[in-house]
């Protein structure tokens, strides 16, 4: 892929983009969380990524790209709280070890797989439980297949993954929640879009936009 400096710059650019996006979507995500949760997902994500933006700006100039990604995770853990804090933060932190030797097509697949595994492990949600897992799983599957089987360039693979995540987000609407606060609503959760799946899609969209630049 690109050299270390380009990789570092890409991580920083992605962080900026995601932070902008979360702040812009704060009200919308909170709106989604009001319907089936406790009206804080937007505030949680915006607070978390604004903190990440600051931390990354202060990061050591010779930190590896993988270290930067780890910082993203650690910062989210200590700033977000709630369910999304450990799920996003903990999983990014733990998956970041896959990027120790730099960000390549292969290592990005490994990162994605490790990240998905950690989210499922931490949260215990299976597919169809109406959580972020529903957006994440098709995205990771699609990305892996596009790179490893179809030999597509990472940018195209990522575009397909975003597309898959979007289907996952839409898929959460008609489901009954089985995990997260939405599960307390029982059948009343049907017909609403999952906030965490939605923020997962937004992050991926920003990763794609960063890659396209």
């Amino acid at each position: 892929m690109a050299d270390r400096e380009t990789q570092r710059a890409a991580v920083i650019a992605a962080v900026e983009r995601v932070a902008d996006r979360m702040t812009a979507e704060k009200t919308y995500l909170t709106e989604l969380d009001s319907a089936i949760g406790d009206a804080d997902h937007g505030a949680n994500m915006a607070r978390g990524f604004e903190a990440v933006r600051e931390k990354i700006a202060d990061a050591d100039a010779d930190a590896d790209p993988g270290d930067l990604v780890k910082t993203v995770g650690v910062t989210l853990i200590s700033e977000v709280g709630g369910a999304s804090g450990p799920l996003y933060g903990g999983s990014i932190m733990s998956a970041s070890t896959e990027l120790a030797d730099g960000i390549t097509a292969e290592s990005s697949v490994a990162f994605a797989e490790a990240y998905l595994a950690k989210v499922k492990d931490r949260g215990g949600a299976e597919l169809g439980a109406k959580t972020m897992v529903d957006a994440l799983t098709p995205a990771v599957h699609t990305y892996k297949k596009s790179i490893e089987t179809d030999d597509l360039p990472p940018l195209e693979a990522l575009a397909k993954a975003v597309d898959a995540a979007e289907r996952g987000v839409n898929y959460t609407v008609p489901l009954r929640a089985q995990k997260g606060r939405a599960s307390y609503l029982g059948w009343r959760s049907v017909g609403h879009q999952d906030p965490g799946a939605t923020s997962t899609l937004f992050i991926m969209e920003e990763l794609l936009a960063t890659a396209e630049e």
Partner: protein
Amino acid sequence: MKKLINEPGDVVDEMLDGMVAAYPDRLRRLDGNEVLVRSDAPVAGKVGIVSGGGSGHEPTHAGYIGDGMLDGAAAGEIFTSPTADQLDAMIQACDAGEGVLCVVKNYEGDVMNFDTAGEMAGMEDVDVEQVVVNDDVAVEDSLYTSGRRGVCGTILVHKVAGAKAAEGADLAEVKRVAEKVIDNVGTMGMALTSCVTPEKGEPTFDLGEDEIELGIGIHGEPGTERTDVMSADEITDHLTQNVLDDLDLDAGQEVVTIVNGMGGTPLSELFVVNRRLQQLMHDHGLETYDAWVGDYMTSLDMMGCSITVCAVDDELKDLLDAPADTPALKV
């Protein structure tokens, strides 16, 4: 939205400072953390009892810090569980070498963050145990849900565990009595109105002038069912019946009851509910050993209440009657 706040993002921080300013002899804030502990924490020779979760439930959690109850409480953002590093700092500050019991309410966020914190503190050689309170009978407890929520019954767990720890019991014993409460308590809540979080500034859910929500939790999440307005007696009948169905107690059983206000309910109305609740206890052949009425575990400014019933034996009665000296509860 009108609130007695400055910036929405500063509410938790300023609330904690305001608490310390009210109880400077009792409470201490951990530097750089949204954690309050007893001013004399860790208390030598005593198991530490800690709790925590999102803010917005005041006097829960920090209001119960003091002799005979909690040693520390972590305050997350409004309705957002605290981060693992804050919980870890709290656990370490409350460990006097006898170990720490974490009283966790069953929300995925709380459980995940406490799990991580327990691991972190464990690495520093703190003996950490956890109990998970899940007293909300409105939520089906099955493999296909995230399980019952922890709500107002948590206060009884704090009280009993705190009293046992104050006696000098070891961590295993303290955990055992906490679990005894958890096994014997049930709660169900309802809302007349939604609460308004400072960040959102509007009601989390819209309720018509003729509607109420049954089976709400304590985070402003909508309930399990929306119905037409009912009278206080009808609401009390409904909540109590669900709790009693779940507990399935024998006639003659002694119980402690709680009518808990959600924050915006006048105390007069809670007593109207208690009147009916005690009639029902009597009709079911249950003996009320103690009846609590007040705001113990709130949802900001929500109007509504929850009803808790806990079956008690001699051991629990003694622990509930043991002295406690905290801002929000004195026995």
